[in-house]
């Protein structure tokens, strides 16, 4: 059991970890999520007693790490895959660590087998790939057969087979009653591995709940409704009757409608009542990745800007008018035909950066941390993500422009 209480770390004026309190329980894989620079690694280092907290404390099994009796037998950690002297072989690296905890050399060969490095055990680690380095780091963590395991980004650089193996390893370790704490910036990975999620952003706790709760709290189901493209008035009619019935409607860039708050049969009935033909009525579930992105979008430290390549490209010859090709690319046949963009749309939402809105009242964090967070409610609500086309969309427009 790892317990942090009011954990804070400041580097000069910058606060890396801000009043973080959480518990990591045994018998489950706890995912530790956050964007780059959100303080995950700093927190991990503080758990291991490498960095001293500015305020607060973190304990493992009730003890601060530095006063744990025989720490390597109780806590195993993978912090940095490449934190190995390159001149040492995999085996001698592990041997030097094993000797610290009085672990017999036989155990070194065991863990080398467990992580699949037995064939390169006598090779210098400087020649190791990132994936092999991760395996070596995991071997070091497993060495003392500890009850508490910490892994910082363990799947970085691993091949699909390795990722699968790490997933199963984490689950197995947790099922044996151990405490497993895994950091990652990939929600999709955590959704498959973790039982419990701790999400931080800019060093603050954003969410601390089980994966099941996280899904039900954050992933909004919606229906995609498509009406014939040649009948914009039918689209208007359907939109207004859906809003009247209490649903909320947003427009997708290719002309389809995202409807939330109404069950599918009700949408069908309403369309029937309004005498509108439907080309598509399909249920969708916003992915956890989207929920996570929405939660953290206000606290991302490093965000890329659009690469205009201003100094590299000739200015485009033709104006943009009539160029719709870019948007439809990801949508298959529907949006590809020109002519329906964007005059009729109540609220245009670029596809690439569209995150499903949270259910009302479920996500207080997004509202406090992000000015662009969506206000739950009727269709008049502003689009939740960037109101301008995302870089990807613009790039799409530009490439579609080039052949002319």
């Amino acid at each position, binding site marked *: 059991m790892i317990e942090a209480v009011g954990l804070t770390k400041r580097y000069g004026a910058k606060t890396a970890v801000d009043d973080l309190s959480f518990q990591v329980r045994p018998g489950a894989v706890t995912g530790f999520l956050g964007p780059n620079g959100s303080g995950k690694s700093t927190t991990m280092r503080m758990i291991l*007693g490498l*960095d001293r907290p500015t305020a607060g404390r973190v304990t493992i099994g009730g003890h601060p790490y530095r006063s744990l009796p025989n*720490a*390597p037998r109780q806590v195993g950690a993978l*912090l*940095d895959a490449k*934190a*190995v002297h390159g001149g040492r072989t995999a085996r001698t690296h592990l*041997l*030097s660590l094993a000797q610290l905890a009085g672990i017999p050399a036989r155990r070194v060969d065991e863990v080398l087998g467990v992580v699949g490095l037995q064939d390169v055990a006598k090779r210098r680690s400087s020649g190791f790939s990132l994936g092999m380095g991760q395996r070596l780091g995991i071997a070091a963590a497993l060495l003392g057969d500890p009850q508490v395991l910490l892994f910082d980004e363990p799947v970085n650089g691993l091949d699909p087979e390795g990722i699968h193996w790490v997933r199963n390893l984490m689950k197995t370790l947790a099922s044996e009653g151990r405490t497993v704490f895994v950091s990652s910036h990939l929600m999709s990975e955590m959704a498959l591995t973790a039982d419990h999620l701790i999400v931080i952003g800019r060093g603050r706790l954003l969410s601390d709940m089980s994966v099941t709760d996280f899904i039900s709290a954050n992933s909004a189901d919606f229906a995609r409704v498509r009406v014939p493209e040649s009948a914009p008035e039918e689209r208007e009619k359907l939109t207004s009757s859906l809003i009247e019935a209490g649903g909320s409607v947003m427009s997708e860039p290719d002309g389809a409608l995202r409807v939330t708050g109404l069950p599918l049969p009700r949408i069908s009935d309403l369309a029937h009542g309004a005498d509108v033909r439907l080309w598509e009525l399909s249920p969708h579930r916003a992915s956890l990745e989207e929920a996570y992105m929405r939660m953290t979008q206000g606290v991302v430290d490093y965000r890329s800007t659009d690469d205009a390549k201003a100094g590299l490209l000739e200015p485009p010859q033709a104006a943009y008018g009539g160029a719709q090709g870019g948007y439809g690319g990801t949508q298959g046949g529907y949006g590809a035909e020109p002519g329906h963009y964007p005059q009729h749309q109540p609220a245009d939402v670029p596809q690439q950066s569209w995150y499903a809105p949270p259910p009302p009242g479920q996500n207080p964090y997004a509202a406090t941390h992000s000015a662009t967070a969506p206000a739950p409610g009727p269709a008049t609500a502003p689009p939740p993500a960037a109101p301008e086309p995302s870089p990807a969309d613009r790039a799409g427009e530009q490439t579609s422009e080039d052949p002319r």
Partner: protein
Amino acid sequence: MASVPAVLNSEWTKIRTVSSTTWTLICAFAVTVAMGAGVSALVNGTFDDLSETEQLTFDPTLVSFSGTVLGQLAMIVFGVLVVGTEYSSGMIRTSLAAVPQRGTLLFSKIAVAGVLALLVGLLTSFVSFFLGQALLGDRGTDLGAENVLRAVVGAGLYMGLIAIFSMGVTAMLRSSMLSMGILIPFFLLISNILAAVPYAKDVIRYFPDQAGSKIMQVVPEAMGSDPSPYGPWAGLGIMVAWVVAAVLGGYLVLKNRDA
């Protein structure tokens, strides 16, 4: 609580499993012995060309240790690498996660590497001495002569202490590059050049290498060197004080800074 024998054992594994250990120590031995032998042979051949003062204070023991000026650089590299690679590779975090008692880790590391450096230093000094005396022929001396054994053992201690001093400095600076960039020019050039400058030499003679190397002299003011206000053992004591200060500084840095 990681036990001290376990940490010592682990540090010994770390040291013997990297090739830089072997190469730097072989280099220290070979350079010191070869250069000492070369200078001994040269001095023997050109003895009549030496100045009168130098002839009067001729110190065959010191001549056979002429190689330490260069050989100590390899010892410095050894000391820097033993500590510095932990930082440059990031291994220090793995090590400290396994041994949260930072003092135990650093002192064990320095103990293992220091004893190894002292042993190699002693081997180097004895081989240098015997080879040098053989090449000096009739002008040579032998271990039985007064103060000679002290000088030979002292030369070995000097080599080992230089390595330990480098370990302490590297633990303070936490970087191999930085430590080498400071230590090597200092011991190769600055210290030797300033030692010849009037006024400056009054301060420089208390620097670790200047003070420590006094112990290699059998004849006082050997080879026309300046008289010093301290004797051979006091000189070594000054050097030991420097070493202790460097190691303590390294310990305080390791103990108080985030890894």
